Every structure is written in structure tokens, then in C-alpha cells.
């Protein structure tokens, strides 16, 4: 095949392989199961669809939340852009360049897509304000020099045709240089003419991404140039900052002379952690929203830790949850996660009553029968009459039970948070008040929230009359707001709260209300906040404590490379690594790396080579090749510090007397050394300083273990 030869050919910088859709793609689209012993043929495909659906639902919810988080900032930024150049302070000596800084570290970068979308298509019918603005994006990579920066900005606008038609070609001989701001000015004039926009209401918005990565000198020059062209050129800059609003990066970095040209407006986001907690809470602990898959405490822990320690981006959070979904649907049983996953009962039977689905049925049967879905009395006899239908209906029962259980848990958890919040508002001291919302979530999912709500309920019992009234109202209102099915399920606690509410209205003493209320709530929490793992077949809808595959998101390539060098045998299948003496089977690069680890900061390449030769020759002798002449063994090749005649003679002996084989061996060793050395160099272990002749510097000082 030509593709094969092309791919092997290293002289090609790129190889193109055309789309080959002759083969049937659908049959092999699904990856093989990780658990073939209890899976069936179509399972992968079905799980794949279920996963897409479940994740889609979760993603939609989270995007709505993120969107609503962005909304106020987007609104005010758009408003600010509109107001720029019209809403100016009177009496300024010169016009100021409007700059809007948005602190966006905590949020996903799609914020700027949103802003640019709003700016470009803002059609306010009411005021006939149909002039859309022009937006261009600038990334730090393009802005290493002032010429490059200006070129990016100018061409970002000018590449659009002023009349909205086809792209126009500019001849270099007749047009201004691409970095010349006068070109932009000319373009803007023609845009306004084309649009009959006499008041020049279109703004030229430049969004500068990762503003901290830009060279301050370049930015300074750029602002200088731009500010000399306003207001003829209504430029507005939006800076995407990752650093916190105070201390301000802009004010700390740029001199006053430059800041005087700008009119900076800050739009910070709410603290990152708070929005993370909110999103988690609103997605997985909202009584009105039911995610298909409940996320377990390990995933929540990982997501929170990753967010706080590595990258506080909501995009990262989405990726983590998506991976959690994908991992969850690796489990064969998860195919039953959506209702009627296998279609109607007839279809389901057809799918499952094939020989290759028997392992799956077996596993399902075992799980159903060891669960509490079937009463022990039935258990003894029912297995004989089990059909696919009855199995699936058991699963349906379990699904409903799990759903309800999770829902009630969510409601109870939200009440705990509410109570906690009320207590904090009233100035009560809460033990363990350093626990964050995700911490509490994990405890609730594990059913270990006892100490928290126990403490809260004991505080309820001691509430003074003034606060009690407020508290009871809060709890009462809370239950008013829960969905109908929850109300039906929780009628006991609701009627009790109702009683307390009525007693309050009748003016009963605080002691009489708070005591029982505390007990009732405690009872209620105890009943509802239980580990989800106790539900039958829980692992179909709940990721539980399965570890999150963190190395997909947060890997350690460095540790992996070191491990590969130091313990290559760990990567090889056990059968292949036969000998006891590990040193005998080390690849060349590992041998060289051993020397690297033992050496000091600088390595003399010749010494390294010598030790490599000694090692290889020792190994060669051990292997039993007796044909090595005495003179060629390692000790005589190692140069002694005193360079004497004797040494020289020995060397000559080797050179002169060694046979063809010996010469070949030395050349081979040298070639292997060079190859291994260059491989280490390629991996970045070596720095050529040139300070000493043929010495290299170590770059890694990790210890071997």
C-alpha cells in the first residue's frame, strides 16, 4: 500500500490519508468491552448511546448554569461597549481609550465567545439600534512585536469586507501596510459610508486573550498608537485577565503615563470556588433536576481538588464530569441505566435471549437475586420461573426506588444546608464550619452526615423564641417549594412542620415547638441521608466510590519517563523478563541512565562512554562469550588518571592485535552509546553547556526511587 510506505517515509513532513469509507464503520464503531465475561455484543453500542444521552442532559444543565453565571458580566460589558465614546466625562483634556478588564480565571473561556456574539449581533429593534459592532480576537502568540500586534488588530477587522460581501484582495503595491492603523481608519470610514452610519455607532472591539502573557512594552506601544487615533476610530479593548482584580495587574505593571490614556473598567466574577460549589449543587443536588447518573464522592473530591489546586476553570470541571460519565458506562450493567434501555419487553427479550448475551444475563440474574428486590421467601422458588421480563421489571423497580431515594436525599441535603445557613445568619457557632459544600456533599452521599445534622438539630432544640419563628418559616417555605412527588413521599415530616408552623401561629411557647421540631428533623435526616450504595443495583445509576481516572486529566509524564528508564521491566509482560539479574536485560538507554543518576552535575561524556563499555563487556562476559581478548576488557580501557607510557602501549596492543571481531564490537558499542546518548538528549535529560570540552550537564536530579 502506498499509504504504508508514505507513513514509513521519514523524509515527508506530512502525509495525507484520504477518507476511506468503503469499509462498514458502524459494525466496529464501539470499543470492545472491558468486562467481556459479563457483557453482550450490542451492549457497547447501547451503553455508548446511553452515555451520550446522560452526559448531554448533565452538560445542558451545567451550560445553563454557566450561562446564567456569565449573564450579568456579559450584560454589563455589552452595555459598557455601547456607552463608550458617548458617555464621556466632560472636560477631559483628551479622549480616553475605553478598556474593559474582565477577570475570567474562574470561568470557562467561552465567556468571550458569548460577549463577541452579543456585540456582533446586538439587534435592538426597539430603538432601531441595529448597528452591530466589530470584534476581533488577539492572542499572545501573535503579539511578540509591536508590528505583529498592530497587524493582528488591523487585519482582524480589515479582512472583513466593508460592505459585507466577498473578501477583497488588496494589492501590496496599492494598499497601505497591513500593520498601518491608517488602513483600519480608511476601512472604518468606508464601513460607515456603506451603512449610512452618520453617527459612527459601530465600535471596534478588540478582545485580548490571556492579557498577562502579553509583553508589557508591546502593549504600551500599542495603546499609545491606538489612543492617538480615537475617537475617529472607536476602538474598545476588552482584556481577559486571569489574575485577581486586586491587586490589579494592569495598575501594577503599566506606568502611569500609559494608564492616563486609558479609561479602565473592571468586571470581576464572583469568587471561583463559590461558583464551582453552586454549579455542583445545582446540578447534582437540586430537587427539581434529576441527572441520569449520580456522581460519587470520589469524583466530586477530585473535581474540587483539581479546580482549587491546578486550574480553576469550569471547562476543566465539565471535562472531569464527562470522563466520569464515560467511565461509568464502561460497566456492562450500566446499559440498563435509562428507562426501557433495550426497547419494549419483546425487543429486550430478543436482544438478551441470544447466546452471547447469556453471560450478561447471568451477571444480572446474580445481582438481582442477591439484592433486596426479591423477598427471601420468594427467593427459594422464584429463580426457576425467572424470565427476561421479570428480570427487567426488577430492574425497573430498582430504578424507581433509586431515583426516589436519590431525590429524597437531595431534598434532605438541601434542607441541611438551609438550616445551616439560617444558623450562621443568626450568628450561631457551628462546629466544623470549615467544611465546604462539596465536603458536605461527599459526606451526605456516603451517609455520614450524622454529626453535622445531629449538631444542627440540637441547636434547633435550643433556639430562642425570636429566632424560632424565623426558622420554622424557613423550613415551612422550603417544603412548600419541593416537587409534588417529594411532598407525597415526605408527608410525615411536612405535616409535622405544618403543626409546628400552626403552633407558632397560635402562640405556643418556644420550648414546646423547638424540642419536638429538632427531634422530628433529626429523625427525618436520619431516614433520608443514607448512603446510596445501600440501594439495590445502585451501581447502574451511581458512580459511587470508583476511583476517578485522574491520570487522563492530570498526568505525570515526567514520572512515567523516569519509571520507563529505571524500571523498564515493569512495562514488559511478565513472561518476557526471564532472568533474575535485572541488569542483564536493561536496554542501552537504561544502562546509560544508571550512569547519569550516579554522576555529579556535569558529566564527562568520555567517562560515561567508558562506564558504558565496562558495563557491556561485563555483561558480554557473563553471557559467556569467551572470545574477548584480555586486553579489551573494561579495566584496561578505562583511562587512568596518569597518562603514562604503559597505558599507551596497552591501548596500542588493543588497536593492533584485536581481530576483526574486536574492532566490530568496539564500533558497535560506540554506535549504541551514541544512540542511547542522543535518545537521552532527545528526551531532554542533557544540556550542552559548552563550558567544558565534551561535558554535558544533568537536567534531572530526581532520585531513582
Amino acid at each position: 500500500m502506498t499509504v504504508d510506505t508514505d507513513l514509513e517515509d521519514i523524509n515527508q513532513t506530512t502525509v495525507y490519508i484520504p477518507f476511506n469509507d468503503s469499509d462498514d464503520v458502524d459494525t466496529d464503531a464501539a470499543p470492545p468491552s472491558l468486562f467481556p465475561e459479563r457483557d453482550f455484543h450490542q451492549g457497547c453500542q447501547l451503553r455508548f448511546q446511553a452515555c451520550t444521552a446522560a452526559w448531554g442532559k448533565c452538560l445542558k444543565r451545567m451550560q445553563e448554569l454557566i450561562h446564567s453565571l456569565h449573564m450579568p458580566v456579559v450584560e454589563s460589558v455589552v452595555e459598557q461597549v455601547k456607552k463608550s465614546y458617548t458617555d464621556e466625562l466632560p472636560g477631559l483634556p483628551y479622549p480616553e481609550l475605553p478598556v474593559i478588564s474582565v477577570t475570567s480565571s474562574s470561568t470557562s473561556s467561552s465567556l468571550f465567545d458569548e460577549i463577541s456574539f452579543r456585540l456582533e449581533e446586538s439587534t435592538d429593534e426597539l430603538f432601531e439600534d441595529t448597528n452591530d459592532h466589530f470584534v476581533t480576537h488577539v492572542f499572545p502568540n501573535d503579539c511578540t512585536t509591536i508590528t505583529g500586534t498592530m497587524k493582528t488588530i488591523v487585519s482582524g477587522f480589515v479582512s472583513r469586507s466593508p460592505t459585507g460581501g466577498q473578501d477583497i484582495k488588496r494589492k501590496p503595491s496599492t494598499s497601505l501596510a497591513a500593520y498601518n492603523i491608517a488602513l483600519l481608519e480608511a476601512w472604518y470610514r468606508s464601513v460607515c459610508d456603506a451603512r449610512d452610519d452618520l453617527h459612527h455607532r459601530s465600535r471596534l472591539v478588540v478582545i485580548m486573550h490571556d492579557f498577562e502573557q502579553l509583553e508589557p512594552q508591546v502593549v504600551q506601544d500599542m495603546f499609545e498608537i491606538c489612543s492617538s487615533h480615537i475617537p475617529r476610530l472607536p476602538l474598545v479593548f476588552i482584556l481577559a485577565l486571569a489574575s485577581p482584580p486586586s491587586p490589579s495587574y494592569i495598575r501594577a505593571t503599566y506606568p502611569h503615563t500609559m494608564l492616563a490614556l486609558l479609561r479602565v473598567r473592571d468586571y470581576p466574577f464572583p469568587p471561583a470556588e463559590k461558583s464551582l460549589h453552586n454549579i455542583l449543587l445545582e446540578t447534582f443536588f437540586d430537587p427539581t433536576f434529576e441527572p441520569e447518573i449520580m456522581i460519587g464522592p470520589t469524583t466530586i473530591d477530585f473535581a474540587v481538588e483539581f479546580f482549587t489546586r491546578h486550574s480553576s476553570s469550569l471547562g476543566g470541571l465539565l471535562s472531569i464530569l464527562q470522563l466520569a460519565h464515560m467511565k461509568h458506562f464502561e460497566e456492562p450493567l450500566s446499559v440498563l441505566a435509562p428507562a426501557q434501555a433495550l426497547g419494549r419487553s419483546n425487543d429486550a427479550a430478543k436482544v438478551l435471549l441470544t447466546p452471547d448475551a447469556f453471560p450478561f444475563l447471568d451477571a444480572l440474574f446474580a445481582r438481582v437475586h442477591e439484592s433486596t428486590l426479591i423477598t427471601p421467601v420468594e427467593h427459594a422458588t422464584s429463580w426457576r420461573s425467572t424470565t427476561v421480563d421479570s428480570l427487567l421489571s426488577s430492574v425497573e423497580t430498582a430504578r424507581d426506588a433509586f431515583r426516589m431515594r436519590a431525590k429524597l436525599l437531595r431534598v434532605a441535603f438541601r434542607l441541611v444546608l438551609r438550616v445551616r445557613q439560617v444558623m450562621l445568619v443568626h450568628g450561631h457557632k457551628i462546629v466544623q464550619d470549615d467544611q465546604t459544600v462539596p465536603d458536605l456533599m461527599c459526606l451526605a452521599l456516603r451517609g455520614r452526615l450524622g454529626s453535622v445534622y445531629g449538631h444542627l438539630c440540637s441547636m434547633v432544640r435550643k433556639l430562642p423564641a425570636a429566632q424560632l419563628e424565623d426558622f420554622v418559616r424557613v423550613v415551612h417555605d422550603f417544603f412548600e417549594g419541593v416537587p409534588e412527588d417529594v411532598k407525597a413521599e415526605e408527608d410525615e415530616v411536612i405535616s409535622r412542620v405544618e403543626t409546628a408552623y400552626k403552633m407558632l401561629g397560635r402562640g405556643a411557647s418556644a420550648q414546646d415547638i423547638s424540642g419536638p421540631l429538632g427531634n422530628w428533623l433529626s429523625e427525618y435526616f436520619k431516614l433520608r441521608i443514607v448512603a446510596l450504595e445501600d440501594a439495590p443495583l445502585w451501581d447502574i445509576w451511581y458512580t459511587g466510590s470508583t476511583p476517578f481516572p485522574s491520570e487522563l486529566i492530570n498526568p505525570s509524564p515526567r514520572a512515567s519517563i523516569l519509571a520507563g528508564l529505571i524500571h523498564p521491566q515493569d512495562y514488559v509482560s511478565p513472561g518476557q523478563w526471564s532472568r533474575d539479574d535485572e541488569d542483564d536485560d536493561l536496554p542501552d538507554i537504561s544502562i546509560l541512565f544508571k550512569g547519569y543518576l550516579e554522576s555529579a552535575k556535569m558529566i564527562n561524556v568520555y567517562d560515561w562512554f567508558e562506564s558504558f563499555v565496562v558495563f557491556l563487556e561485563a555483561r558480554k562476559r557473563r553471557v559467556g562469550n569467551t572470545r574477548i581478548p584480555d586486553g579489551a576488557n573494561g579495566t584496561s580501557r578505562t583511562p587512568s588518571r596518569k597518562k603514562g607510557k604503559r597505558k599507551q602501549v596497552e591501548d596500542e596492543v588493543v588497536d593492533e592485535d584485536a581481530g576483526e571481531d574486536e574492532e566490530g564490537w568496539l564500533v558497535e558499542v560506540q554506535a549504541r552509546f551514541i544512540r542511547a546518548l542522543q535518545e537521552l538528549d532527545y528526551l531532554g535529560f542533557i544540556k550542552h553547556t559548552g563550558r567544558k570540552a565534551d561535558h554535558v550537564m544533568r537536567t534531572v536530579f530526581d532520585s531513582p526511587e
Partner: protein
Amino acid sequence: MDSDEGSELYASDVEHNYATNIFKESETDGLIDSYKPSFDAYFTHASSRTRTSTNVFSQRVVPLSPEEHNAALARASVHAYTPQVPFDSSSFKRWARELDEGFNILFYGLGSKRGILNDFAKHVSRRGHVTVVNAFHPSVTVRDMLASIARVPGVQSTSTSAPTQERIAEHFASSDSPHLFLIVHSLDRSPKLARAISSLALSPHIHIAASIDRLNAPLLFSASQLAARKGSSFSSDRATKNVGYSWLWHDLTTLAPYTSELTFADRSSISGASSSRARVDITNPVSGPLTETAAMHVLAAVTAKAKKLFSLLAAKQLENADSSDISEVNSAHNPHDQQHFDMSYDALFTLARDAFIATNDTALRALLGEFRDHGLVVSAAQPGTSGSEVLWIPLRKERLSKLVGNLDGDAT
């Protein structure tokens, strides 16, 4: 998800390793000496004087010619142990699924990943168009990649030049566009390419599988680029202007030698694989040691007189080398350096005149010119004297004698 054998053991965070190790120390006193964090090791090494021998590798060891090198490595495959890490190609489908889910994949770990990624490229060619980029190639450019992508039907517009990144990103953003799989070998070798890819990587129809080799390669990517996701969370049908990678990391330790990645490295120099050198070498064809075959080619093309002159110089050099072995102990620390067996220009001129090769200075210079241009004869000012020139052939003794033997054989 899928992860290779052993990755669980070692994929834990480096920081985390330290933490557990330090924890162990505090528990058991005996272990304190056995563990040293890397920064401690660095300062220990930096504070002490480096003791190395004064031997210089490039002087003591004659570099091998590419032919010798390749022949030696072919022989070495018998002795050298090259471990095979088991690989199951069923991972391909898993990776393809991850690409479908909107992630891009980055492979790390020791060993050349080129073979496996090429197989993967063939695998995904059933799902869409594939472009494989050899980023380890010293002369790879962003334009090459774009030109290759332009071969996908429909991408190339009327103009003949390679399309811009924006044009490509726009093309693949539309929902009816085909899928493009971009396979990049050793992405970390070309930061420019990595930057260019960052503006394509978030396009919903472009899927990227790349490998990195360098220890510090993750520094190429900023935190915000790593966290960026495909598909705007604001609306899915609009192309995002963002840059980023959306990597999923996979440990793909193969332990395979980096043969193809190092093809462009200069095998005769210890710094031949470092990136700065590799770039220079491609522009400088006469680098590297003179080979026998190269010399034969040059000699076949010159006049008989010039050939005679060469063998004269060679014979003299061999003679010098033979005698120096016994008598000149001073040069013994540097036995192979051919400059020590050189010949002054004046001496050569006398010899050449005696042998009726060149009767005047101009003729001799003309004859030598051809050899000098091809690096067959090297000249330098004689140390210690002013203006006097010395000449020698930069070939080791055995090769030179073999060459002279061939030359004489042809002549007779």
C-alpha cells in the same frame, strides 16, 4: 478508561510521591538517608566541585560514519536488549471514541510512539480524512501541515496557496464538513506547530492525536489552554474563537528506540540530537565526517593528476602515522587526530614537483582546490609559524589505507 500497564503505579503526581516519601521518613528513621528530593540533590551537586577526568570524547573516539553506525546498530540488535511492551490494538477503538467525545489525545511515556500512532492513523482513516505530521522533522513548517490539510476535498478554495488556519478552522466548523484526524508525531519538537494546532484543536470536526517525548513537554501548554473544551458552552453550533487543546493524556510507554525521530540527528557528534544542532545540519550538507564512499565519488571525478596528488598526500600521511605510533609519544593522548600527521604545503609542493604532478604553485593550488571544496583535504595555518600552511586528509588510518589501496588498484 484505558491505561497501559504500569501507568497506575507511576502515573501518580510527582509531588505526591515526595509527600508519601517524606511521610515514610518521619515514620521510620532509618529511611532518611535513602531518600533525597531532587532539589536537595541539585544543591548537593551544585555545591560540590565536579570531578571528572580530563579525557575529551571527541578527541579520543573517532566518530563513526553513517554507514558504520548503521551497520553497527544492525549488528547490535543481536546483543542489545530491546524490550517489547505488549500493545493491544483494541485501544484504537477506545481512543477513537474519546476523540468522538470531543477530546484530543496526547500520548506520553518513554519510547518511540510513531509506529503505533501510524497504525492508529490507518485505523481512523475509515472515519475521516487523516493528516499525519512528522513534527520531529527538522524542516517541518506550519505551512506543510496546512497544505496537507488542504488536500481534503473542499478545503482548498480557488487560490493555489495553502489556506490559512482561520480558513481551515472555519471549514471544519460547519456541521456538514467531514472529520479530520490530525496525527502529530513528537509535537513538542516544534512549538510553532503546537501553537498552530491550538487554534485548530477546538474545532468540533478536527480530532488530534499527538505524541510528546520531552521531559518538560507539558510546559508547552498553559493552564487555560489545557482546560479549554471543544464546543462552546454557550452555543454548540457556533465556531469558538478560543485556542486550547482539550487533551486527554495517555501513557503510551513503548520503550522502542527513537530510530526515526533521530534520523536527522548528527550521529558523529555528541550534541547531534540537540535541537539547535539538528536545525543547522540540514542546511550544511558538508557536515559530519568524511566517508570513504564520499571520497571515492570525488576521486572518480577528478583528473589523473589530481588522483596522483591525493595518493601522494595520503601515502605521506600514512607514513607519518606509522612513524608517530612508535616515536611520537607526545601525541599519544590523541592518537587518531589526523592533524598530527599533516604535511606542510611547501613539502607537498616539493614532492609534487618531483613527481611531475604540478610544476608551479598555481597548478598545485588548482588541483587542491577541488579536494578542499569537497572536504577531502583540510588545511590550517601551521601552529607556531606565521603564514605557513599545513594540509591533511580527515580520514582515519585504516580507511585511508583502504582508500589508497583502491585508488592504486584502479590506477594499475
